[in-house]
């Protein structure tokens, strides 16, 4: 039996540097910094005050007229906005009746309805239960984003939400591919969503993992992440289905790999063993030789430990070739969007292939001897990008790597 190929026919995103995919392309091209003051909650008492907050958050503008935003969290609204953009991009909005039962939703979550829930909890602690709007918890569960998407669109396909912290979005895309390959869906709305919230902000601050200024991936003086927010959605579709309906194909989902450090809950394995295994598994799953990779979209959080470890891991997997592969961290522009990061970076990867460019790492001024790869620091580049590896490494030692390729009827294109 021939294995079903899975392609990407639509993209959607909202994040600190863009409200749509076309805007996102421009911002990535120009190396725009979206990290600035956080205003979605009061940061006065925090040690840091910056983050990658979405600049224009207007649910009325983001959600189609006729779709109620009632009881939707900030996270749900972002996911819905990105899903609608991606479906429109794919020419599948509204989803045709005959596809409703065969369209799945797989979302990578993070804080979910935390921003709304924590406000209610704060009230609760103040008033001991009096006057607390418990309805603010109605979309607390991360699964709510997928629920709202299937409900508003009338979908009846498989629905799943992944919660593996910073690798959620990447794992969601991989599982979506599996569902299509297993014949359990023809189209899957796959991605991730993550809101800024006080609790998330406090957890990373408590760990001392936040750069008070802006994150500086791979820089010698990097001090930690900038927290971000946003959503990224990709429409994954069986190749036959996409061809039959004459859809424009933006890239192919070639493979993914998942591994676990089994080392420490919040620190990566300094030997990069988990990262190496998940990159290798992904390449193997994709049928891609390490020599063929044209660009690596790094996890690149800008914590001292991650960037050193990731560089080491890339060198282990790619050998001498590692020094010739451009590696960039797009988190330098929009911050670390945690549960959404893998999916937003999936959008970046597919854009890179389709638009033939490599986005930069911004804010890197002083090289670190331990981070000695080509981090694309001089700005975005024109490049014939055929194969991209995208890394996501998370708390809990959860690692996921994804491989995207240029779509051709014949299959993988490489030098």
């Amino acid at each position: 039996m021939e294995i079903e190929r899975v392609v990407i026919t639509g993209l959607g995103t909202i994040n600190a540097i863009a409200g749509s995919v076309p805007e996102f392309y421009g911002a990535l091209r120009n190396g725009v910094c979206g990290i600035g003051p956080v205003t979605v909650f009061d940061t006065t008492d925090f040690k840091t005050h910056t983050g990658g907050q979405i600049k224009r958050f207007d649910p009325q503008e983001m959600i189609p007229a006729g779709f109620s935003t009632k009881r939707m969290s900030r996270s749900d609204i972002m996911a819905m906005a990105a899903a609608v953009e991606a479906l429109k991009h794919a020419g599948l909005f509204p989803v045709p009746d005959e596809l409703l039962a065969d369209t799945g939703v797989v979302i990578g979550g993070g804080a979910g309805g935390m921003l709304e829930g924590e406000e209610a909890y704060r009230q609760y602690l103040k008033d001991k239960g009096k006057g607390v709007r418990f309805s603010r918890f109605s979309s607390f569960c991360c699964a709510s984003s997928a629920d709202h998407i299937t409900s508003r669109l009338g979908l009846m396909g498989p629905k799943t939400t992944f919660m593996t912290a910073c690798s959620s979005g990447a794992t969601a895309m991989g599982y979506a591919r599996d569902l299509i390959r297993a014949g359990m869906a023809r189209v899957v709305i796959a991605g991730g969503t993550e809101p800024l919230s006080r609790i998330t902000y406090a957890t990373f601050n408590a760990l001392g993992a936040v750069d008070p200024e802006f994150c500086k991936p791979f820089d010698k003086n990097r001090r930690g992440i900038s927290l971000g927010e946003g959503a990224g959605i990709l429409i994954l579709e069986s190749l036959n289905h996409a061809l039959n309906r004459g859809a424009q194909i933006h890239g192919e989902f070639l493979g993914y790999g998942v591994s676990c450090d089994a080392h420490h809950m919040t620190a990566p394995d300094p030997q990069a063993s988990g990262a190496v295994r998940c990159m290798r598994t992904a390449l193997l799953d994709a049928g891609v030789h390490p020599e063929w990779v044209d660009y690596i979209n790094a996890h690149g959080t800008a914590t001292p430990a991650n960037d050193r470890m990731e560089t080491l891991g890339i060198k282990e997997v790619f050998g001498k070739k590692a020094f010739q592969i451009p590696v960039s961290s797009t988190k330098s522009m929009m911050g670390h969007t945690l549960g959404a990061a893998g999916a937003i970076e999936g959008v970046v990867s597919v854009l890179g292939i389709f638009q033939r460019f490599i986005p930069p790492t911004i804010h890197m001024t002083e090289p670190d001897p331990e981070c000695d790869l080509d981090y694309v620091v001089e700005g975005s580049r024109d490049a014939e990008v055929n194969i991209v590896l995208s890394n996501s490494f998370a708390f809990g030692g959860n690692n996921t790597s994804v491989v995207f390729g240029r779509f051709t009827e014949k299959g993988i294109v490489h030098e």
Partner: protein
Amino acid sequence: MNESVVISGVGMVTPLGTGKDTFSRRLFKGDSGISEITSFDTSRFLSRLGAEVHGFIPKDFISVKNLRRMDRISRMTAASARMAIEDAGFGIDASNRDRVGIILGVSYGSTDVAAQFAGILFTEGPGMASPILVPNTVINAPAGHTSIELGFRGINSTVNHREASAETAIAYAAAEIKNGRADVLLAGGADILSEFFFEIMTHFKAVSPVNGGAEGARPFDSQRNGPVIGEGAGILCIESMAHARARGAAPYCEIAGWGLSSSPSSPTDWPSDPAGPILAITRALESAKITPEDIDYVSAAANGGRKLDHLEAEALSAIFAGESQKPFISSIKGAVGESFSSGGIRTAAMAISIREQTIPPTLGLENPIKPLPFILKIKKETGINYGLVNGFSSGGTFASLILKRIDE
């Protein structure tokens, strides 16, 4: 690719006890795990009952070094995982650890630690927010802790869809084994009962007694008035039949098929149309290449909730409408409560039912809402070749699993 997938071990920490022997003995006997909540003061709530885990001794299963860093949900998960691995007679070592992993269903996770962290944040300020608590505030912490405790480094994932979390996780794990992406996977679910979480549930009128009456879990009963919230962990050890046979293991049963679907519903509500659950069950039957008449026993998702139980009864009536001999139906949520990611415990119970050829009773069920062959107060010994496990959640997410007796 056509390799069959088997359950070779089970482990659980439940309101009926820890470990398969105590759990299954009490389950079949008809004991209830539901009683007045003792871990916090319920006097300000309308609801007092819960299915709490008592008498669980984490030290019996987890090394002290790792135990110190684990919260309650991670302890239950890691202990259940160790029991499942030991029950399967499998040893994790340097030669196989990269092909062993975990896929866990978690609905709300460490609500106790999250509330504690948020409590400090909002009363004492961000400067006092404890870095010690942080690792346990994330929902994937139980799977992470378990990988560290047992030393496996393969696939590691956490799936979240309320009452369908664990069934969805098990379906994913079975697919990964079938695809050859792992040799052995631990799969199941875990959730805990905590005070603030309980308070939210009572405010949402999601807990018995919703509209007054006597408090209690009564799946499929005409007098039902909401579920009783439970807690616990249940983990399966899953591998391919070939892998199990090669190491001389005697699996409980096969995971013969699974089906996933959804239908429109707001996150805190249930659809009234049974089309979604019917689709999940139909897909599971197709995936197992069987027909409704092959099913002998249904372990229902029903928890005593007004809408869920009605929805599931409608779906089962429709699926089995043509059968003169309909399958027996029971819900163990009458004994273990609704712990959301209860699918690990419930699928383990199905594996035990198939091995013992015995169906556990549905506690709390006296007057069924539909004339279906429900198993009421007393267990039933009967032939079970195929068992169906339903995981249905609010928000309209449906996962059905089909387990099959292994032909001798």
